[in-house]
């Protein structure tokens, strides 16, 4: 299983991320988003940020999580190299909660080698599915 793969889209970034568990899917989707913007190896994993989110649906939880990584970059000038994600189903199966510990560094284009700025996660073709025991997310990033 590849962690993620970039596919062709005329103007924006389209990727599919995979995971045997939801935790793994979210971690790989985060990596794909970050790799579309940076050469990941140039981000030192020396600082940590926590993200906590809740949502009724897994799809919207992933949407919110990826959007949060974009927010961290612009608002807090924090760029993420990798995340450790833990997702729990809340009591009575009414939704999901996420805790993510994100490793990265302060944004500094003299240190990090960048590619292209992510503006937003789009809803166009956005999906989270499970096929033959593997979770798959399809994401188009507006850049």
């Amino acid at each position: 299983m590849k962690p993620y793969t970039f596919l062709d889209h005329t103007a924006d970034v389209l990727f599919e991320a995979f995971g045997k568990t939801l935790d793994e899917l979210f971690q790989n989707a985060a990596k794909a988003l970050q790799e579309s913007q940076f050469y990941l190896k140039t981000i030192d994993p020396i600082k940590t940020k926590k993200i906590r989110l809740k949502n009724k649906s897994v799809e919207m939880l992933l949407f919110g999580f990826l959007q949060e990584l974009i927010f961290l970059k612009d608002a807090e000038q924090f760029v993420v190299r990798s995340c450790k994600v833990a997702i729990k189903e809340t009591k009575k199966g009414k939704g999901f909660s996420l805790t993510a510990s994100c490793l990265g560094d302060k944004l500094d284009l003299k240190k990090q080698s960048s590619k292209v700025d992510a503006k937003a996660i789009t809803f166009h073709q956005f999906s989270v599915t499970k096929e033959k025991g593997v979770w798959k997310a399809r994401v188009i990033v507006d850049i």
Partner: protein
Amino acid sequence: MEQQQKPDLWKQLKKVSDTAWEIPQSFKQGMRVPARIIGTEKLVKEMDPGVYDQVTNVATLPGIQKYALCMPDGHWGYGFPIGGVAAFDAEEGVISPGGVGFDINCGMRLVITNLTYKDVQPKIKQLVDTLFQRVPAGVGSTGFVKLTHSEFKDVISQGAKWAVEKGEDGCIKDADASKVTDKAIKRGFNQIGTLGSGNHYLEIQRVLPENIIDEETAKAWGIFPDQIVVMFHCGSRGFGHQVATDSLMKFLNVMESKYQIKILDRELACAPFQSPEGQEYFKAMKCGINMSFANRQVILHRIREVFSEIFKETPENLGIKQVYDVAHNTAKLEEYTVDGKKKKLIVHRKGATRSFGPGHSELIPIYEKYGQPVIIGGSMETGSYLLAGTKKAEEETFGSTAHGSGRTMSRNQAKHQWRGEQLQRDMEKRGIYVRTTTFSGLAEEAGGAYKDVDAVIMAAEEAGISRRVAKLVPMGNVKG
């Protein structure tokens, strides 16, 4: 959702004229109007299947008038296609953030100088290098203007007026800063005066004598042979992006449950224009419009400073003046005649430029005579255009025309085909000096990844929705 095969799609198009092609309502269930693609047969045939799918999705939205349109530079986007135009009845129709795009008021500004090619050519490297230092670009770039959150709220209420402190174009009325989230402010308050990345850039261009097509209009707008002009492309940065995201989420929550609207793509989330949610987005979106105007105004200030320093003259003596500033991602209230009746419409343009013709009441006198200036950013290798709006655009395309040359190749493909470092060297040999924060980003913007800008602009002219004034060719480029 997989895309349909193209040959089948092409067969379903009905030829309306040499430059207008219609997709009938029978194409897709739920279409309220036909879709219409503007372009020559060649351009329309070459458009990706995503365009067909997206423009017909737009045709299903409540209150849509006449037809869902796609301009000749159209290509697959998200929600609306890029190049998408749709007008909705202001009383019964919807407003959709997906019809504006995340980069609210992404647009172009054209600045003239009284310098000629001979003056600038020896200093082109110094100019581009200095602009590259002074106008921040690239991923997450922050500006040199330090503001508090409260000062930033003044910016988004007042637009470019904030930057020039006096009445000048560049402010949209009724922007309401109370309708935007703290998140949006946190993302954008430190980004004024930055280009961003992707296809954003700042370019020094040359007016070749043979490239002035309409001498009278060119002269009236201050364009002369061998002149040096500056064109730049950027938007509302993280602020606008967050306004759009926040509104989409809000619309998704109320669209079906409160307003019983069903859509084919969540990116087209919408609400009735007159609903509280619709009006809130409209007012927040206007803040995005103003952020972008202010952003471009501050960048213009930097351009003035840099030219002044290098040519040791005041900006006034260098004749540095803005010709016009066009937005190509907006929704605006405009009046049109539909079925013989005058109607207020909320016109969405996503990757399309307003193209008002001569005599339009919203234009100031200097532009009233010739139609409004339309600024088209081509690729960094091939050239850009200054056009004029037309009456026919007001009749046929809700006063809209193309916004650029339009991509034809994915970023992945472009990176496989070109290497940024080599491209930079090749361009320099051809007299285009380019600086970038990212070589992979540079490769993605190679001229070959775009449609032929001349063909796109000719198609718009043949369709009568804009006319050429001058073509502008690149000499130096700061790539975001």
